[in-house]
């Protein structure tokens, strides 16, 4: 039915008022958190125990994300498409004949991608052997699915926040609205932090501490991070959004280093080159917190600039500050001073060979001289392009209402 043929009350209903954060958003946030913990746990499992099965605790945490997302998406799609609630219909978009909020469809897409990855992964194991790498084609689809669920929940939360944040004329804000708005904004920032954790997870193999004297590590981070920071900053509208998200990543990763070694574990696969007696945590977090603070300060000052101008400056600032803090810090991580429970450079995989750079605590093929400068220049360009996409997409997300 076109707008002109519809009665006015159907075309422009009174904007619904906030009534607290819906349970669907809370459930979605729990799902995304579960997948984040599950993913980290699974990597630690493979590094310390090696062998897994369908029902390891880590896998259950990842699958729980899919199950919870399926319940939330299924409920919202059915209730919106076939239910009688005018409010749900008014806050929905149409995809393939069904109606639901946009974020629900994105999450559902992620769930189907996760489902698709399962038989593909099974076939992959039979064809090419058991997992030895994080980034295999079926794992990429699985990670893409998990990330889509996360982005979908972010959209669902953001739309609810935007509806309250841009109130209809004639409506007055109540304290309940303000409280709900603040909660939704906090959830958006929290999921921004999860997004940063996810980005760093995906590029983990290129940002291992022994690889941080390679230009490649900075190129990869310049591609993956500015876009995420810009999206979080613009979509949330919070002046310290990047700092908050980077702090969540930093605290989460340090917590992993402190907690995982408390859990007993022993290898069930050979060859065993390093006797392991507990879960092996990840590496110490990359110091992205510092460039994140710089980006917040920068973007707060450049509000009147055009996006491409901001992006051009962002790429250079991000790479320069990241390089300035991480390069010497990586040298510290190679030293004996970092070999303790906090910095975690004493933990190695069970299959870590004694002659491997990780065990020897030396850098892997470090870049130097003109190649390094050229690499950093390229990283800055990547960072600018990445930031431009993030700024534009973040601005667009700020207007999402459904």
């Amino acid at each position: 039915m076109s707008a002109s043929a519809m009665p006015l009350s159907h075309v422009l209903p009174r904007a619904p008022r906030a009534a607290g954060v819906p349970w669907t958003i809370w459930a979605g946030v729990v799902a995304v958190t579960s997948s984040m913990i599950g993913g980290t746990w699974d990597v630690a499992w493979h590094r310390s125990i090696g062998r897994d099965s369908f029902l390891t605790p880590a896998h259950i945490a990842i699958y729980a994300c899919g199950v919870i997302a399926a319940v939330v998406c299924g409920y919202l799609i059915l209730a919106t498409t076939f239910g009688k609630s005018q409010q749900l219909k008014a806050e929905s978009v149409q995809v393939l004949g069904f109606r639901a909020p946009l974020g629900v469809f994105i999450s559902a897409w992620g769930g189907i991608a996760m489902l698709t990855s399962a038989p593909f992964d099974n076939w992959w194991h039979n064809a090419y052997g058991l997992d030895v790498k994080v980034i295999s084609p079926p794992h990429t689809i699985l990670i893409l699915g998990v990330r889509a669920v996360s982005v979908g929940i972010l959209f669902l939360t953001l739309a609810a926040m935007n509806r309250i944040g841009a109130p209809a004329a004639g409506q007055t804000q109540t304290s309940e609205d303000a409280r709900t708005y603040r909660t939704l904004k906090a959830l958006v920032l929290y999921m921004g932090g999860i997004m940063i954790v996810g980005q760093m997870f995906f590029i983990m193999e290129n940002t291992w501490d022994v690889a941080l004297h390679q230009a490649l590590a900075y190129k990869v981070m310049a591609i993956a991070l500015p876009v995420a920071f810009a999206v979080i900053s613009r979509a949330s509208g919070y002046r310290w959004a990047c700092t908050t998200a980077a702090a969540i990543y930093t605290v989460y990763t340090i917590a992993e280093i402190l907690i995982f070694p408390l859990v007993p574990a022993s290898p069930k696969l050979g060859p065993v080159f390093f006797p392991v007696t507990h879960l092996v945590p990840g590496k110490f977090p990359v110091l992205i917190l510092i460039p994140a603070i710089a980006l917040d300060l920068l973007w707060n000052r450049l509000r009147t600039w055009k996006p491409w101008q901001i992006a051009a400056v962002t790429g250079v600032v991000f790479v320069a500050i990241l390089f300035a803090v991480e390069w010497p810090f990586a040298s510290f991580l190679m030293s004996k001073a970092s070999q303790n429970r906090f910095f975690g450079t004493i933990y190695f995989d069970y299959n870590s060979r004694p002659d491997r750079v990780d065990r020897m605590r030396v850098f892997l093929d470090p870049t130097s001289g003109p190649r390094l400068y050229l690499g950093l220049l390229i990283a800055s360009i990547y960072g600018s392009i990445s930031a431009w996409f993030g700024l534009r997409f973040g601005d667009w997300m700020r207007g999402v209402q459904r």
Partner: protein
Amino acid sequence: MKRLWLLLTLLLGVPAAHAHLGSKDVFQTIHAGPYTLYVTVRPPNVIPGVATVEVRSSGASVTALSVTPLPVTGEASKHPPAADIMQPSSADAAFYTGAVWIMGSGTWQVRFDINGAAGHQVASVPVVAVPVSTLKMQKGMGAILAVLGLFLIVSMAGIVAASFSESRLRPGVAPNRLAAAQRCRRHGDQRRRHGRSRCARRLVVERRSRQLRGEHHELCARSHHRHALLAMSSISTSIESPETIPAALAPTATTFPITAT
């Protein structure tokens, strides 16, 4: 010549024979103290993969049997991974089955820890692990993955379309893309200034306001923001639900009076 014909006749008369060539499986008899084990190890076709192990015990009675893989030489041969308990058959208590994960090509040993009435013994069987095949995708599996992949592409296209057509509209505002697009062509400057989606959204509302008020001649002459404010102030006194039109006219996500962040 006769002998040659006879030989050829005999050769042609011999039925086809079958032979087992190039088997990767290992069959070995182990004598470990008083225990005797008849061991079969079937390495996987792909590496890394799972090798199956079958053992038939003889001699002294075996009460528990565990198995673990480790390289024959080198540092890793000193650190065996946690052993797996082999399961006895329900039909034959002396027959055990188990599995070991072979994670790399090379020469391995499958080590057995034997416990029984005659005490504890350890024995090993050498196993060569090499990948011998690459599995082709079955047609059924390929079809399922193709359908799921196609659905993912189509549904993603639908999501992208919905993102640009509806997701930024105020709740309840119906999209009318054709009218909005036509209107946008007449307002090229506004479209360039405000972006397509915002212009389209505003124009849907403009048309609705013109229909209600019956006056539209001034709209084109006014600036975009000023027009919106005029429409808000005038419509609010002439329609049934005065607060609904301003709800749609209000710019989205530009101001928020609750918290300044």
